[in-house]
């Protein structure tokens, strides 16, 4: 009896020593939450592909060999801000998530932005477009990686106005993203001497655009600006062709177009469209090598979209910051500060930096959709037309209203 109690006392002491021992060593556990639209209209441009991109980033970081333990969980926000914030809260409170990545849909992205700030997590947004994430609603916990509405307006929008498209009519998705894109593009159009003659706000996920297209046609505007995304954009473009809008002399401005959208429209209809992205799988050997690895693991063998590429590159940079910190990855503001202090460089987006407001700066590329006769493979869609350096593509710090800049 007595020996037994001594034994258990010793065991208890041993355990206590082990536990304190762990607490003294560097904490090297990280949990990543990939929050996306897993089944709706944005699922192909983010969704399961973004989770895959996160897995590849973990593999390539080599942190596992250095004693780090990294887990990934994924969630479906269904394009609803309430669901998105509920998942984010649960991830921080129950699952102990450290970093949330992707989050397409600006409405959800802005809502989740607040939760992450409140919980002091890290937010690497790739999928959302609204420039507000690093402007009026910026947060010390947020890095906005891939693209934003300011960039889209100042590349595709500006190029079209300068080419003579001085009257615009907008088809705008009726939520945060559409409003931001229309606002930023309108600013560019006006600044370059153009005029917005009208517009219509359509509900998210509209199957039929004919009513809206007829209004756009009747407006006689030279450019019909599509301030929408995903399935809404593909439907607008396809149906605009049907109603003879392009043949009638009006031009479509696909302000935001993804690789998967071009696939869905088909080259026959999409050919000749001009648009901007910050990543395309077929840029150089490095992007091709990554894209091949990625596509081999995708169910439909699709190469990564720029959103998925952004998840990968953002996480790679995040891991570099963790390595530099050496451990204890749970203080979001500290990690993001470290990320901002290091220049970014990766195989997919090249060299760049993260501004104090959280905006990642890298090159943007103007593309044109190839003719069916020019396309050599199932995903060979883009022709590079021009490159816009990062400092010209994104919001200049002087114009940003971000509170972080006023320190």
């Amino acid at each position, binding site marked *: 009896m007595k020996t037994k109690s001594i034994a258990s006392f010793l065991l208890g002491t041993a355990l206590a020593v082990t536990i304190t021992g762990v607490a003294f060593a560097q904490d090297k556990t990280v949990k990543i939450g990939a929050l996306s639209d897993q089944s709706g209209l944005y699922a192909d441009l983010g969704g399961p592909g973004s989770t895959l991109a996160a897995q590849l980033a973990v593999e390539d970081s080599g942190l596992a060999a250095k004693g780090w333990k990294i887990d990934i969980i994924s969630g479906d926000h269904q394009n609803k801000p309430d669901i998105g914030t509920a998942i984010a809260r649960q991830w921080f409170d129950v699952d102990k998530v450290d970093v949330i990545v992707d989050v397409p849909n600006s409405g959800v992205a802005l809502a989740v932005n607040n939760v992450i700030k409140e919980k002091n997590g890290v937010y690497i947004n790739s999928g959302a477009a609204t420039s507000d994430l690093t402007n009026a609603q910026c947060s010390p916990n947020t890095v906005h990686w891939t693209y934003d509405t300011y960039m889209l307006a100042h590349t595709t929008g500006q190029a079209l106005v300068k080419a003579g498209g001085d009257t615009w009519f907008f088809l705008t998705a009726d939520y945060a993203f559409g409003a931001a894109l229309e606002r930023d593009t309108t600013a560019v159009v006006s600044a370059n001497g153009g005029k917005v003659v009208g517009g219509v*706000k359509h509900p998210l996920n509209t199957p039929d655009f004919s009513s809206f297209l007829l209004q756009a046609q009747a407006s006689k505007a030279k450019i019909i600006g599509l301030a929408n995304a995903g399935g809404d954009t593909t439907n607008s473009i396809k149906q605009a062709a049907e*109603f003879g809008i392009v043949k*009638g002399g009006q031009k479509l401005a696909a302000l935001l177009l993804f690789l998967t959208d071009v696939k869905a429209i*088909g080259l026959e209809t999409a050919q000749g469209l001009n648009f901007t992205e910050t990543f395309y799988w077929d840029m150089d050997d490095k992007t091709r090598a990554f894209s091949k690895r990625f596509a081999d693991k995708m169910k439909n063998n699709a190469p990564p979209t720029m959103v998925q590429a952004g998840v990968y590159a953002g996480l790679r940079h995040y891991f570099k910051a963790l390595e530099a910190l050496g451990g204890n990855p749970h203080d979001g503001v500290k990690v993001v500060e470290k990320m901002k202090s290091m220049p970014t460089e990766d195989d997919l987006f090249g060299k760049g930096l993260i501004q104090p407001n959280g905006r990642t700066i890298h090159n943007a590329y103007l593309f044109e959709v190839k003719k069916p006769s020019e396309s050599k493979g199932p995903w060979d869609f883009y022709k590079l037309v021009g490159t816009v350096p990062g400092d010209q593509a994104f919001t200049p710090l002087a114009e940003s209203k971000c509170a972080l800049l006023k320190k």
Partner: protein
Amino acid sequence: MQALYAQLLVGLINGSFYALLSLGLAVIFGMLNIINFAHGALYMMGAFVAYFLLNLGGINYWWALLLAPIIVGIFGMILERTMLQWLTGLDHLYGLLLTFGIALIVQGVFQNYFGSSGLPYAIPDQLKGGMNLGFMFLPIYRGWVVIFSLVVCIATWFLIEKTRLGAYLRAATENPTLVRAFGINVPRMITLTYGLGVGLAALAGVLSAPINQVRPLMGADLIIVVFAVVVIGGMGSIMGSIITGFALGVIEGLTKYFYPEASNTVVFVLMVLVLLVKPTGLTGRAA
């Protein structure tokens, strides 16, 4: 004023999809007493079958109009034989839950393999282009959709309300035991009716393939509106669902013109109003 004509016509085009789909739902509900929530998924399957026929078999749009409804119809009949028939006489809720589950499974399977952004399906060459009506540019394909679906709707109505076969069907719904006593195979007739309703959904799917993307969720986006159409028209009323389908398409089209933000809710507002005033729907008879 010109713009108004154009919106009316566009409304009619959308209305023809509502009419075709709600017609199938009304046939199934009227004859089988099943609230067929799988209707949207079957509509989507119609579009996908057309896509496969073209891309794997080289079979063109015109054959797809015939073959897709038959193929999906057979799939529907298998569903009816293996699952739905066991629900006869049970509360509507069981049928609703079962078909809803089927819809989720079918959509999930398609989404797993084809993603969510859809596949392109070109307009057949014969129907490409459009004509200038003076007040609008009408794509020929859209005109074709309106005329074709009107013909199909009227043919279905005629089949059920005016032919001997239709009379048997309606009698079998009223009193299956008695009809069986006359030597008619009631279960087989019910299976065929479900097949017909499903075939109509698939037909609408083929018609919509060149206009919309062939997407796994194309039906899920539409089905709720179509249910509202059926409720407004009066559950199970064939003519009611045809007329309401077209009418609601027009009302929705006008909303898109005058107040676009409300265009995806106007149908439900109308549904509430109709139910408040006439709970059996516009053409429904009190049970």
